[in-house]
């Protein structure tokens, strides 16, 4: 699997490169600004681009805009955006085209190498990796929603993990329950929220996020 990395801080770029290589991923290019990212993506056609939100020259949301531009040039290009902070606003913008292959994570998540690599692989495969903090805020925002309030605590847990973009198998492993139990929970959640049940993991995630973000 080939990765293009855009991160302006040398230490983090270096650390991320080593982390990715240690897990058997190939870093095709590691750049430190937005324009270089676009060039690198165009030439090396990676399986996934990992981009820091804050990049030179503006040190604002340059990375986010570069990532969105890259996806416009190469439709469906999986992009994982990293940031020191998360905003629902940015999550929405990333998810806006509704095609998946989107990750939006706090930089902290890099600290847990195995989970981070899992998220990278998930995004590269066209899935979603939404930061737990974004999901938590989405759930808080919807706390007044009657249908959501009617869910059992376990179902809320499953809903949260589902919104992060995890598969049934991963949810089962995390909650130490069987996959059948997870499937039962998801069916109940979809019923209560009035959503169309789908076997496709990615479509399921997008439906949940769209429901919470509406």
């Amino acid at each position, binding site marked *: 699997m080939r990765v293009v990395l855009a991160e302006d801080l040398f230490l983090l770029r270096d650390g991320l490169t080593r982390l990715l290589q240690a897990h058997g991923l190939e870093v095709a290019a590691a750049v430190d600004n937005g324009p270089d990212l676009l060039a690198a993506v165009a030439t090396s056609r990676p399986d996934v681009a990992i981009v820091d939100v804050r990049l030179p020259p503006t040190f*604002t949301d340059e990375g986010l805009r570069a990532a969105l531009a890259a996806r416009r040039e190469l439709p469906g290009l999986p992009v994982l955006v990293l940031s020191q*902070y998360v905003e629902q*606003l940015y999550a929405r913008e990333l998810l806006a085209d509704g095609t998946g292959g989107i990750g939006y994570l*706090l930089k902290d998540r890099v600290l847990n190498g195995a989970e981070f690599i899992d998220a990278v692989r998930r995004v590269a495969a066209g899935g979603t990796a939404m930061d737990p903090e974004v999901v938590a805020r989405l759930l*808080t*925002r919807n706390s007044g929603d009657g249908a959501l309030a009617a869910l059992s605590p376990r179902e809320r847990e499953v809903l949260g993990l589902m919104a992060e973009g995890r598969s049934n198998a991963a949810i089962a492993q995390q909650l130490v329950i069987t996959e059948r139990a997870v499937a039962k929970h998801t069916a109940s959640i979809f019923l209560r929220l009035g959503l169309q049940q789908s076997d496709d993991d990615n479509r399921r995630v997008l439906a949940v996020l769209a429901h919470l973000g509406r």
Partner: protein
Amino acid sequence: MSGGAMTPGTRVRRRPSRSWSWIGAGIVAIARGLVFFALMLAGAGPLLTLLLVLVLVVGALRSFSAHRLQGPSLTRIGMLPLLVIASSVLATRWLTGLTRRLAGRWCGTPVAAPYRPIPAAGADELDLSQRLERRLRWLATDPATWRDLLWLAVDACGGWILAAAPAGVIAYGLACVAVPATRFTIAPGSPLGSILVQGPAAIPLGIALVAAGLWSAPRLLRAYGWLVALMLAPARRATLTSQVRHLAQTRSESIDTGAAQMRRIERDLHDGAQARLVAMGMTLDAAGQLIDDNPAAARALLSEARESSARALAELRDLVRGIHPPVLADRGLTDAIRALALDSPVRAQLTAELPGRAPAPVESAAYFAVSELLANVSKHADAGQVWIDIRHGAGMLRISVSDDGRGGADTGRGSGLAGLERRLAAFDGVLALSSPPGGPTVVNMEIPCALSSPKTSSCSETA
């Protein structure tokens, strides 16, 4: 009130089709002029009283010194004249205040009140005479007091003519017409006979005078308004003084706020991230010592250290958000407030029309103000929906936050609104709250500022 439509003269010009409306405007202006005339007469009261007291007091002091008594002091002169002076001056203020308001409403010349605020009571102030002395000093040292008295004198000596002359001219004109028309015979030797024009010219002259009076009344009333503005508006010096006072107050408040914020940041760093980093270092050290003998325990310590670092990061993130939210730096006010709206547990609808970016300190103040208002709404208002509107016009950034909650918010009752008001004041901004019990609550904020860059950002969406 910005005159225009209320001024009779302009009304005539604006609606030329109503060819008779100038008569109505003239009558209205004459009535108003007579009100000003009455105010002049009323003003003569305090003016004459003050003159009388002055003469009496000077006379009394002369007789004191003639009898080689001690020098003048408040107790020696007695309380009564002082009370009379104070109440006369206050009556003057009331009268000139009314004149200012009426001039603003009727003559199209709004006049601001120029008075200094009354100083706070001193700690050693015990009895009535000291209180009276403080008030008298406040009244006597304010130049506006003397300008008020000067105005009363000028008005009484001739200013009133502008206001009342048309009424006099019309009365004379009516009399000229009325005498021949009613075949009223003037008794020989009556003063009326020597004043009134008689004979064939009387009726046309009378009609011309009435018309001239009606025509000139609105114009003279406006001239009177200018005179009022000239005499009663705050002197340039007084305006500057009050601005300096305002600036000194808001400056010290913003310094206090800044210092308090620095202390809070210092405390947060000290108790939070800093402490966690120390703990993390110690945990790593312990893990290093255990790594050969007890790898399992070392691994547990390492994962503990990792959790510590994650928590330190989370705390730093919250701190940064409280100092300057990154999304505000990235995107500017509209998107930052949209991000706030997205995080709000109460459904928020944002409409914004900002053709550019406000200066960073204004953006920051506006952002935190909206943030606090949204927090208030979700905590206290019991609302189902909140509307945020941001726009810029005539050099003002205008933000309104309204909700359909239960209302009853109050700037006084420790709701944080008073603090908000103070922080906005540092930018000459103002906050207006309307929150009747039962709702809805509407908060309007205005901050004077210019926008940079002509980039348009406009949106309307439900979050």
